[in-house]
């Protein structure tokens, strides 16, 4: 197996100001990657423990608000012996500009990674200007 840099984990606790607090538990700031291709922007967010049923993505004005909730039910009859991470909900928000076609934002979550595809609006896509000959 080739050696590469080891992944590390950072979790930052946040004060929920923009998230709707519906249950108990801490809120965390999940890590994300954003990349741009000629046609769209993609946001990837790590949300381990979150499935399609407990995620909400809202577009309010210019803000894309993502909340993911994690259930702690599994631990009812277990005693925690050793703990390295806290189970908590996730919240993150992004401000998006007019360069995004808001009607066509797509989201999917698989294996605890949320991927949001934000297509660029037609007017910002790179285009070639043809030179006409007369």
């Amino acid at each position, binding site marked *: *197996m*080739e*050696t*590469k*840099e*080891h*992944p*590390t*984990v*950072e*979790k*930052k*606790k946040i004060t929920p100001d923009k998230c709707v607090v519906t249950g108990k538990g801490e809120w965390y700031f999940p*890590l*994300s*990657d*954003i*990349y*741009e*291709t*000629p046609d769209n*922007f*993609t946001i*990837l967010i*790590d*949300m*381990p*423990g*979150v*499935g399609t049923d407990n995620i909400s993505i809202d577009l309010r004005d210019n803000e894309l608000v993502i909340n993911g909730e994690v259930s702690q039910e599994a*631990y009812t*009859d*277990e*005693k*925690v*012996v*050793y*703990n*390295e*991470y806290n*189970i908590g909900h996730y919240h993150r928000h992004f401000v998006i500009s007019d360069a995004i076609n808001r009607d066509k934002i797509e989201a999917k*979550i698989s*294996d*605890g*990674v949320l991927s949001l595809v934000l297509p660029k609006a037609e007017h910002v896509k790179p285009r070639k200007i043809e030179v006409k000959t007369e």
Partner: protein
Amino acid sequence: MGLMKWERTGPLDSLTHIQKEMSDLLDILSSTSPMEGYASMEFPPIIVSANEEHVFVRAELPGIKIADLDIQVVDDVLTIKGERKSVAVTAKATYLRRERNYGTFARSIMLPEKVDVERVSASYKNGVLLVKLPKAAEAKPKQVVIQKA
């Protein structure tokens, strides 16, 4: 340092500004936790829990293919190895922000109790790996029957 209002300043003002910058820097260098609020740790972070029958090990491993995971139990040591592969992005993609990490990882943990190696099972759901290790018969609590003399 946040945004500062632009003001017409005299030459001495910039000295106090430098002084402030220096004391800010000293604060950063001397603070005990430079990453306040962050808990940086080994990957993957785990939680070990137990009930009467089983020991459970959970690990946060978002975005990993089951085929890239290798889990082994030898005596009372559990080893989780694997690789988190980068998403295949086209050559035309430009990263604007990169917080998530990729790469290979391996970690071994000592289990709190003897387990039945033959019956260990693992599942992966929503980016969380759960390894269920049944306790070995000798580690389970046994009721001692008191006999009348």
